[in-house]
């Protein structure tokens, strides 16, 4: 993992090395050499160099190889057997002269139009954008909405949004006049920077690091320059002055993070629809409840009549002076003397409540009331206990008296069962229980009564809301009627106040099963109110007040103020034109400056990036460094011609790609002949195509596609395919809820990118670590890659799916199935020797007697071939 924070400052001097930087090729305006009519421009330049060197280039690749190359390069997915058949048929019709150009053109157009083209090329772009779904650093908090930027990139590439607009939106989308929602999402490019949220971090230092990263990402992506880096130093021949760096920095120095609500596509409509439905259902339930009111009153009258003579309550409520929970629950004492326990955390061990009361004069019995719902509406859901269905189990109760001298003496209860009291039904109404003492105790003034309630089965079984009372007699009975209800009932119905009437009716309602059922139904409905659209985006906002000052950080330290600078660009490049006469240049001006015709870098860098993804290596082999330390272009005239052509094509990415892949240079064979025309390791002049392993995500996509498991769903929240536990257990926030259903089989670019725990099979195949803009991936080989493809459960699942689909065709000869396997995985027919080898292996696998297992093993062989994960 390369978490490589930009520890330094921002001196960019090594960049241009010694010599006169202004003479450096990359700072000269591209010169367009006109191409003779009838010549393919790409071939014109490449063939000229080959011919000068006396090198005969290779012939075109065979149709199957070309089709697979085009499919992988343009969509990152293999061709389907049907595409292969059609393509080859057209080639045969062309009498062996390779596939007909018209067939190739059609195929190219089809691939460019495929929605998967956008996924493929979005992934390339996301490398530059250092896209990830979490903050990085120690906290590595998830970024719930980062993916909306990713989806914007996919959509923009799908629509072939011209590269200038595509870029301007990302650099300054938030500032654009009438910025669209899409523009604001695009400006989320800047939000992909790492974010340090660690406690105790120097916030201003962390912010300046982010700004440096933003400058660096913009410079790498659009200028091919490493403006800010960790290993910078003063150079004697600096063409770029430090103040010039801080002029560029100034464009990005006042971006504030902003996460505004922005409903997802269709989210508002869905919300409105479900809200309307909910309101309707709620109204219906309310009506039902209202209808019930009349018969409820009748039932209450009947209930009241049946109560008969009510004796006065012997109980006096004890108002606690103190209530504590051994589990650290929050204990709130109410006006009525009730105690509400709110769990802090679940605790499986004994939970003890300790309550202290000013001592009553005489105590003969203690009553505990478990207060369920008061029955007055929305609280129908409140229950007496915190257990299952609102139950509780009180294990023991003990009482002590603390004298004024602090000494304790115990009071004995006559009932010492354990558990002492439990309520598991009708948990929504009040329950009460009397606990008589063995003998009544007289307490002195100033003494304290201490009650200890133990719930031995842990916090999941404790009382939730309860109240304690005392009676003088040891035989006091606790009725189910609360004291205030008794008191109210003792008043003649026509003399009762509104409050007293409510006390009675509320209590009755909690007893009335019919009412409670309806009330509960309504409560549940109320709880189901549809959530408002949750969709948010990550974007930035230019700070208008209390702006950070723009000044040179002397030696890269923000605390050391150098001269004040205004936003600007290095003098070695063309001047920047501000739109406004006053107030200086802004990010929009900077973005326009990048696309100014005089800018020598932007177009070259852009076409080089595209070229790299079609030939495996750029015309400039160091796509992130067009400075004097970087590699020189192998075909400078071609680079310049393409740069000017990109602009002429209206910055259409698809048009430029179409142009390049229609060249002979692109379509050449990559196989090295026995007598190569030149040292086979040297393909600088492109006498052949390059052959190289596909990227990490494509390795996975190929498996999913060939096995038929691939979900072709585009966009949406990132997914989490299975991951062994010991991979996640090392990070801090390690939740990795494995995705279900088709989400397990989404393309690699949708895998949740958690910066501290990158998905191991992606890392094994050199996916970037997302810490900084990555313009070129490593391509390593290791035995770990073999282990991954052979044994990783995710890849094995693909082999099983593929094996199973072959087993379903028992009447078909093994050779035919082997051919099918080749078509699906490699997009070609097997050679006889290959078919023989695979048939023999399959026969050996079959010796174990299980056809499905044998085909799984056979499929697994093909999925492990070098060719399968190679673009030839």
């Amino acid at each position, binding site marked *: *993992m390369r*978490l490589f924070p930009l520890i*330094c*400052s921002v001196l960019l001097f*090594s960049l241009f090395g010694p010599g006169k930087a202004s003479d450096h090729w990359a700072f000269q305006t591209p010169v367009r050499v006109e191409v003779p009519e009838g010549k393919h421009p790409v071939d014109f330049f490449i063939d000229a160099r080959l011919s000068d060197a006396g090198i005969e280039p290779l012939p075109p690749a065979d149709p199957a190889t070309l089709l697979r190359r085009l499919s992988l390069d343009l969509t990152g997915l293999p061709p389907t057997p049907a595409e292969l058949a059609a393509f080859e048929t057209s080639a045969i019709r062309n009498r062996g002269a390779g596939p007909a150009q018209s067939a190739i053109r059609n195929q190219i157009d089809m691939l460019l139009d495929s929605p998967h083209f956008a996924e493929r090329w979005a992934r390339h772009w996301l490398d530059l954008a250092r896209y990830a779904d979490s903050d990085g650093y120690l906290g590595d908090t998830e970024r719930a909405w980062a993916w909306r930027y990713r989806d914007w990139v996919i959509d923009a590439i799908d629509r072939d949004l011209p590269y200038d607009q595509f870029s301007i939106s990302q650099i300054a989308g938030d500032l654009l006049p009438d910025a669209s929602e899409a523009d604001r999402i695009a400006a989320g490019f800047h939000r992909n920077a790492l974010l340090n949220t660690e406690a105790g971090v120097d916030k201003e230092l962390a912010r300046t690091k982010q700004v440096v990263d933003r400058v660096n990402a913009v410079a790498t992506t659009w200028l091919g320059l490493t403006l800010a880096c960790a*290993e910078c*130093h*003063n150079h004697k021949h600096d063409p770029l002055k430090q103040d010039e760096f801080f002029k560029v920095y100034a464009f990005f120095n006042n971006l504030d993070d902003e996460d505004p609500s922005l409903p997802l596509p269709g989210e508002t409509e869905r919300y409105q629809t479900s809200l309307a439905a909910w309101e309707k259902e709620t109204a219906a339930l309310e009506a039902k409840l209202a209808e019930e009111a009349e018969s409820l009153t009748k039932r209450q009258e009947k209930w009241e009549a049946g109560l008969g003579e009510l004796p006065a309550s012997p109980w006096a409520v004890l108002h606690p002076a103190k209530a504590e929970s051994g589990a650290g629950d929050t204990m709130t004492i109410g006006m009525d003397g009730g105690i509400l326990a709110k769990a802090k955390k679940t605790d499986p061990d004994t939970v003890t409540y300790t309550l202290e009361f000013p001592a009553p004069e005489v105590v003969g019995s203690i009553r505990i009331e478990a207060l369920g719902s008061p029955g007055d509406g929305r609280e129908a859901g409140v229950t007496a206990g915190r257990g299952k269905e609102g139950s509780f189990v009180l294990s023991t109760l003990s009482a002590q008296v603390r004298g004024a001298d602090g000494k304790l003496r115990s009071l004995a209860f006559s009932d010492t069962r354990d558990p002492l009291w439990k309520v598991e039904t009708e948990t929504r109404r009040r329950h009460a229980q009397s606990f008589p003492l063995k003998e009544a105790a007289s307490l002195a003034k100033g003494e304290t009564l201490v009650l200890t309630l133990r719930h031995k089965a842990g916090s999941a079984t404790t009382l939730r809301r309860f109240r304690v009372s005392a009676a003088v007699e040891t035989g006091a009975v606790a009725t189910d009627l609360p004291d205030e209800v008794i008191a109210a009932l003792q008043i003649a119905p026509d003399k009762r106040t509104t409050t007293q009437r409510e006390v009675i009716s509320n209590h009755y309602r909690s007893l009335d099963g019919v009412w409670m059922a309806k009330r509960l139904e309504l409560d549940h409905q109320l709880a189901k109110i549809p959530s408002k659209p949750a969709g948010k985006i990550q974007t930035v906002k230019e700070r208008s007040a209390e702006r950070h000052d723009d000044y040179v950080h*002397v*030696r*890269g330290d923000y605390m*050391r103020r150098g001269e004040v600078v205004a936003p600007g660009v290095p003098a070695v490049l063309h001047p920047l034109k501000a739109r406004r006469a006053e107030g200086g240049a802004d990010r929009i001006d900077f973005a326009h400056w990048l696309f100014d015709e005089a800018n020598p870098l932007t177009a070259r860098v852009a076409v080089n990036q595209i070229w790299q993804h079609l030939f495996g*290596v750029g015309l400039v*082999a160091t796509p992130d460094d067009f400075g004097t330390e970087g590699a*020189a272009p192998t075909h400078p005239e071609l680079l310049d011609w393409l740069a000017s052509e990109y602009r002429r094509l209206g910055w259409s990415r698809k048009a430029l790609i179409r142009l390049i892949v229609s060249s002979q240079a692109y379509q050449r064979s*990559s196989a*090295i*002949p*026995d007598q*190569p025309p030149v*040292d*086979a*390791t*040297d393909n*600088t002049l492109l006498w052949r195509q*390059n*052959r*190289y*392993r596909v990227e990490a995500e494509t390795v996975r996509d190929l498996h999913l596609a060939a096995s038929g498991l691939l979900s072709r769903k585009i966009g949406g929240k990132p997914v989490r395919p299975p991951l*062994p536990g*010991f*991979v996640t257990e*090392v990070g801090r926030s390690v939740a990795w809820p494995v995705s279900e259903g088709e989400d397990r089989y989404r393309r690699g670019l949708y895998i949740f990118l958690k910066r501290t725990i990158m998905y*191991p099979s992606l890392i094994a195949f050199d996916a970037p670590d997302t*810490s900084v803009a990555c313009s*070129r991936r*490593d*391509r*390593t*080989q*290791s*035995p770990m890659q*073999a*282990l*991954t493809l*052979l*044994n990783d459960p995710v890849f*094995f699942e693909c082999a099983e799916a593929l094996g199973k689909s072959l087993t379903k065709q028992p009447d078909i000869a093994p050779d035919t199935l082997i051919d099918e396997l080749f078509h699906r995985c490699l997009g070609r027919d097997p050679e006889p020797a290959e078919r023989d080898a695979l048939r*023999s*292996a399959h026969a*050996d*696998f079959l010796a*174990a007697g299980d056809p499905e*297992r044998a085909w*799984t*093993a056979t499929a697994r*062989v093909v999925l*492990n071939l*070098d*060719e399968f994960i190679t673009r030839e």
Partner: protein
Amino acid sequence: MSPESPLFSPHPRSRREFFTSGASGLGALALASMLRDDGLLAAESQTGFKAPHFAPKAKNCIYFFMEGGPSQMDLFDPKPKLNELDGQPLPPSVLEKAQFAFIKKEEARLMGSPRTFKKYGQCGMDLSDLLPHLSTCVDDIAFVRSMYCDQFNHLPGQLLMLTGSPLRGWPTLGSWLNYGLGSDSRDLPGYVVLTTLGRGLPGGAASWSSGFLPSNYGGALFRSQGSPVLNLETPDRISPAMQRRSIEVINDLNRIRQERTGHEEIAARIRNYELAFRMQSAAPELIDLSGESKATLEAYGVDRSERDSSDKTGFQSSFARNCLLARRLVERGTRFVTLFLSTWDQHSNLDKELATNTRISDQPVAALLKDLKERGLLDETLVVWGGEFGRTPLGENRPGFKTVTGRDHHPHSFSLWMAGGGIQGGQVIGQTDEVGWGVVEDPIHVHDLHATILHLFGFDHKHLTYRFQGRDFRITDVHGEVVKKLMG
């Protein structure tokens, strides 16, 4: 022509050899028999690519790459005069030529070391109080105080030290040695990389890349978190016999493809599949430390992080485990193990952070040396410890730093040590001036170091070459002198 080729490139010479030479001659049969004979031929296929030019002293190498530039005058190179001159400016003669990353040189002042040095061992080597464990090993170690290089920044400096070139695209030392000697391990990679990374490595995979050599000579990066190697278990439904047969036919088919396309890279894939197959049985045993004695585990300190609550990163245990793993690897024939520890780049807060680094590394490094010695492995195992450059005798008065608490990059002189594998221990080579600015005796450039290491492995550095893009490349480019003194 740029030596940098991000593409794997085939090599016609080796291709022809591949198909005509005995052991690896045309494919299927040889491979099949190899697997059936339980790797009788496998060892050959991985070793003996080149015979050493003369009898080697060293067989394996454990390279501690201390990323960032450890501060030599606080660890290995005591400078009483520097302490005396603490707070004085640099002499004008030196100042004029000086170049810094961050220091404001006009106002820079020499900074003494707060460390106390004592003499250890029979050789009387001075070591800082930060290295109590290493001080018990000095008689086995050759300390070099006169290293220098010409790279000022981390990435090119590290690439130079690792590959002999400051540019990307060149093979690392471990790749050259595996290319030259092959690996003695049938069952494990010949080149393994173990990391304990704070801020990461600027070069990423370039730090263990095979460059333009075939990519099976690249380092195999073990995971630094959790299990070092994943996916060692064959899926339940695939029996061992099926797995074996599968690898066999995968490689048969890969061989056919190599014949058709002529790409050497496929041969690397074939070797990696053979190796992966063997690793399935060998690696679980390798990474299982339960067979190590309690004394050994304690000596390395593999559970120090659990006992030290201040070690939030867990680096003390992670580095100790890597050291123990390094011994287990060379014991099992791995040619080259690199252990990265980052970072030693103390521009500020040097006292505290240097102590943190030595707390992580001193004990297990010393334990490893002793362990190798006790097992008789030190004679044939070269141990190298060093970074890409050193640090300035000047305090880093980077403007804005409230106080001067660190040192800047310093390529003009730095220290490094070597032990075992033919190195004459108990000696100090080279000398720096009284403030530790420049080398005044026995200057040793990185190329000289590489030439010496190849010499210990039996190679004349001028003749261990690889033809790429029409030119014979070597790790020392056109430089390099063997430092005879190191070998006594």
